[in-house]
C-alpha cells in the first residue's frame, strides 16, 4: 500500500470521521499539517486570532450542532493558550478534539524552541490525551480520540503530534470499528434501578425533575423524552444553567432555573420536595447551596452516565448509571407498562404557585436608566422574530440575567461556561455556533469586562463574514465581582471598576463591523431591532444601570430557603466561614 505522511493521514482521518471544520492557528510545529490542509479543501479551516479563541469556538460549534469541535494549534504557546478552553470543555462535558504540534521526537525533553510538555500539562484537564510517536499509530489514535471525546460523558481529548511524525510515512487504511481494551462507558441502566425509579416516581406526592447539561449532551431525543416524562407525571421541572432549553421555558410545568441565581419557586420546591429526580446534572455547589440544608426531606434519584458523579457531593437514594435518553426511554416504557397515572399533585402545585406569586425575577422600573434585566427581556422579545436564535454568554451578572430573563424552548440554543466560569468564552463560542449554524441569529450577551478577554476574535468574524452580534450590558464594572464586594466586603470595590474602556462603537468600525450605542430606555427597542436587522456583525454598547445587582441570590453558605430577593435584605458583611466558600 502506498504510504502517506503523518500529516496526510491526520487530514484523511478527519475527513473519514466527518469533520467539516477545524478552528486553528498555524505555527512551526504544525506546518506539515497546514500544508496537508492546503491540499484538502474538503476541510474548512477557521483561522483564529488566539488559540483560546479556537477552543471556545470549537465548544460553541459542538454545543450548538452536537458534533465534536476540532482544534489545531502549534506546540508550546499554541498548546498552553488552548489550556483554558480545554479545561472549560472538561468541566462542561463538551466533545472536543485538540490536535497540537510538538517538537520532533528527538528534541523532546531538550527545552527545544516552542517545546512544552503538552501531555503533562493537559493530563488533568482532558478526558484523555496522547503523544503519538509513530505515524503507524496515528490513524488508530485519531479514531480512538474521537470515540472517547464523543461517547460516555463527552469531553476534550488532546493529540500531541511531533513534527517528524507529521513528515514520516506509514500506510493508511480507515480503521475498522474497534472495541477499546478498557474504555466502555455504561449507557444502559440496570433494569432494577429503572423499576425502582418508576415506583418512587409513582409514589411521590411532591416530585421535581432537576435537569442538567447531560440532557442536552444526550441528544435532542433526550429533551423530547424529558418533555414526555414530565407530561406523564405532571411534576415540576427545574434545570441547572447548563441544562436550559432541554425543557421549554414556556411550559406551565417549568419553574425556572435553580441554584444561586435561580428562581424562588425552583429553590423552594427543591427544598420541600419528597422526590428529586436528577437527570444529567451533578449537584454542583452553585445548585445545592449549603449541603447540610439541601433538600432535607427528599428521596433522590440520580441519572448520570458518569459513576463518579454519584454521591460526589450529595448522597442519593437511587443511582441510575446510564445515558439520559436511554434511561428516560426505559422509565417511560415501564411507567406505561405498569399502567401508572399521574398522581394528584394539586396540593404540591398550589404551594409552588404560592412561591411563584413572589414574582422573584421582578426588577425595579426606571425611566432614566436601562435596567439590565429589561435589556435582556427586550432582546428576548425582539429575537422571537428570528427563525432560530442561539444565545451565548460571557461570565458574570449579564450571564445570570440572560439565564433568568431569556426563555429557551429548545436544546442547543444556550451556550455558556458553567463549570469553569470562563470570561472570554461567549464571543468565540458565538463565532463557533455561527460557523455551525450559518442561518441562525447568534447573539453573545456580554459584559463590558468579559468581552475584552477575547475581543481579538472580531477579526475572525470579519474574515469569514460571520454575522454574529455582541450585546454588551455595559455597566462599567466587573459587575459580579462588584456585587460580591457590596454583599461581602462593605462595598469596598477593590479593582472591579472597568477603567479605560474602549469606545466599542469605534472599535466595531475599526474591524468593519457595525457599532450601535444604546444610551437610554427610549433607545432600547430600536437599538435591538437595528442590531437584529443588520446583516453583518454588530456590537451593541448598551449602557445599563451601573449598580444593579443580580437577584434572587443564595449567598455563599446559605440554604435554598435563605434566598435574598432584593437589596433591602443585603447586610454588606459575611462570616469568615461564608467568605471562605467559593
Amino acid at each position: 500500500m502506498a504510504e502517506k505522511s503523518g500529516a496526510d493521514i491526520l487530514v484523511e482521518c478527519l475527513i473519514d470521521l466527518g469533520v467539516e471544520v477545524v478552528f486553528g492557528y498555524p505555527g512551526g510545529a504544525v506546518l506539515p499539517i497546514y500544508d496537508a490542509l492546503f491540499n484538502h479543501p474538503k476541510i474548512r479551516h477557521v483561522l483564529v486570532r488566539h488559540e483560546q479563541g479556537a477552543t471556545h469556538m470549537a465548544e460553541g460549534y459542538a454545543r450548538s450542532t452536537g458534533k465534536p469541535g476540532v482544534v489545531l494549534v502549534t506546540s508550546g504557546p499554541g498548546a498552553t493558550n488552548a489550556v483554558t478552553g480545554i479545561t472549560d470543555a472538561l468541566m462542561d462535558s463538551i466533545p472536543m478534539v485538540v490536535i497540537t504540534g510538538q517538537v520532533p521526537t528527538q528534541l523532546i525533553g531538550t527545552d527545544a524552541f516552542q517545546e512544552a510538555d503538552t501531555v503533562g500539562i493537559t493530563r488533568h484537564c482532558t478526558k484523555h490525551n496522547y503523544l503519538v510517536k509513530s505515524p503507524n499509530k496515528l490513524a488508530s489514535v485519531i479514531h480512538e480520540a474521537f470515540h472517547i471525546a464523543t461517547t460516555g460523558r463527552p469531553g476534550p481529548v488532546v493529540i500531541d503530534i511531533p513534527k517528524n511524525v507529521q513528515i514520516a510515512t506509514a500506510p493508511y487504511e480507515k480503521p475498522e470499528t474497534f472495541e477499546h481494551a478498557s474504555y466502555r462507558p455504561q449507557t444502559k441502566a440496570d433494569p432494577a434501578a429503572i423499576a425502582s425509579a418508576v415506583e418512587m416516581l409513582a409514589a411521590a406526592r411532591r416530585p421535581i425533575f432537576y435537569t442538567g447539561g447531560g440532557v442536552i449532551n444526550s441528544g435532542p431525543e433526550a429533551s423530547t423524552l424529558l418533555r414526555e416524562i414530565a407530561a406523564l407525571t405532571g411534576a415540576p421541572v427545574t434545570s441547572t444553567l447548563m441544562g436550559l432549553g432541554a425543557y421549554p421555558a414556556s411550559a406551565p410545568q417549568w419553574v425556572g432555573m435553580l441554584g444561586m441565581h435561580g428562581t424562588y419557586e425552583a429553590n423552594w420546591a427543591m427544598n420541600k420536595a419528597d422526590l428529586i429526580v436528577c437527570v444529567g446534572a451533578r449537584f454542583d455547589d452553585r445548585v445545592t447551596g449549603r449541603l447540610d440544608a439541601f433538600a432535607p426531606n427528599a428521596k433522590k434519584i440520580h441519572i448520570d452516565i458518569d459513576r463518579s458523579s454519584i454521591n460526589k457531593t450529595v448522597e442519593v437514594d437511587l443511582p441510575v448509571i446510564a445515558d439520559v435518553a436511554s434511561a428516560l426511554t426505559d422509565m417511560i416504557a415501564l411507567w406505561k407498562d405498569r399502567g401508572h397515572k399521574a398522581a394528584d399533585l394539586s396540593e404540591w402545585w398550589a404551594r409552588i404557585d404560592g412561591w411563584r406569586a413572589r414574582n422573584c425575577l421582578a426588577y425595579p422600573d426606571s425611566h432614566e436608566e436601562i435596567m439590565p434585566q429589561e435589556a435582556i427581556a427586550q432582546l428576548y422579545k425582539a429575537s422571537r422574530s428570528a427563525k432560530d436564535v442561539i444565545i451565548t454568554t460571557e461570565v458574570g451578572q449579564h450571564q445570570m440575567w440572560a439565564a433568568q430573563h431569556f426563555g429557551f424552548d429548545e436544546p442547543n440554543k444556550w451556550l455558556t461556561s458553567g463549570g469553569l466560569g470562563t470570561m472570554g468564552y461567549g464571543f468565540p463560542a458565538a463565532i463557533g455556533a455561527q460557523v455551525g449554524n450559518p442561518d441562525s441569529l447568534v447573539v453573545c450577551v456580554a459584559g463590558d469586562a468579559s468581552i475584552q478577554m477575547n475581543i481579538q476574535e472580531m477579526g475572525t468574524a470579519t474574515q469569514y463574514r460571520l454575522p454574529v452580534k455582541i450585546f454588551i450590558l455595559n455597566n462599567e464594572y466587573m459587575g459580579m465581582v462588584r456585587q460580591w464586594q457590596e454583599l461581602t466586603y462593605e462595598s469596598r470595590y477593590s479593582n472591579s471598576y472597568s477603567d479605560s474602556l474602549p469606545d466599542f462603537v469605534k472599535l466595531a468600525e475599526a474591524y468593519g463591523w457595525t457599532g450601535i450605542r444604546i444610551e437610554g430606555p427610549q433607545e432600547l427597542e430600536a437599538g435591538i431591532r437595528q442590531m437584529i436587522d443588520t446583516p453583518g456583525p454588530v456590537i451593541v454598547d448598551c449602557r445599563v444601570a451601573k449598580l444593579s445587582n443580580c437577584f434572587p441570590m443564595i449567598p455563599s453558605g446559605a440554604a435554598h430557603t435563605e434566598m435574598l430577593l432584593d437589596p433591602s435584605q443585603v447586610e454588606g458583611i459575611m462570616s469568615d466561614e461564608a467568605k471562605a466558600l467559593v
Partner: protein
Amino acid sequence: MHIQEEYSERHVLSLTVSNEAGILARIAGLFTARGYNIDSLTVADITPDHAISRITIVTSGPPKVIDQIIAQLDRLVPVHKVTDLTDNGPFVERELALVKVAGVGEDRIEALRLADVFRAKVVDTTIESFIFEITGTTDKIDNFVALMRQIGLVEVGRTGVVGLIRGKEPN
C-alpha cells in the same frame, strides 16, 4: 475560623491498567489534583506481553472519599479494573523491605536473633553490618525497623504494598 479534620480509614486498592506511557502520572496526578492521600503505590507489568500492569495503592480517607477515589480511577481511559481489597476481602497483603543495620559484638548477635524471630533473611554482610530482607505486612515491617533502630539502623528501602484477594477467583 478553623479547618476541621475528617475521620479516615485505610484501604488497599488493586488496579489493572494498560501499560502505556504516562499511566503512572495520570493516576498519581489524580490523587494530588483531587486532594486524596497516597500512603504507598507499587506498579509492575504482569502479563507476558507487558500490556497490562497492576498498580496497588494504599490510601486513606473517609468512606465517602474512598468511594469517590474508586469511581474516579475507574473512569480513567486506560484503567481496566479497580478492586477495593479492603472491602472485598479477605485478602493477602505483603511488602518487602531491605534493612541495613550496623553494629559489633552483642548488637550484632541481637540483630541476628531478632531477624530470626521476624523470619528476615541476611542478604549481605560485612564484619560490621547486615542487610536483612524482610517480607510481611506493613505493621510487621514497621515493628522490625523500630527494633533495628535501637540496635543501629543505617537505612531502609521498602517496596510498598502488593495485595491479592484470597481464594481461587481473580480480584
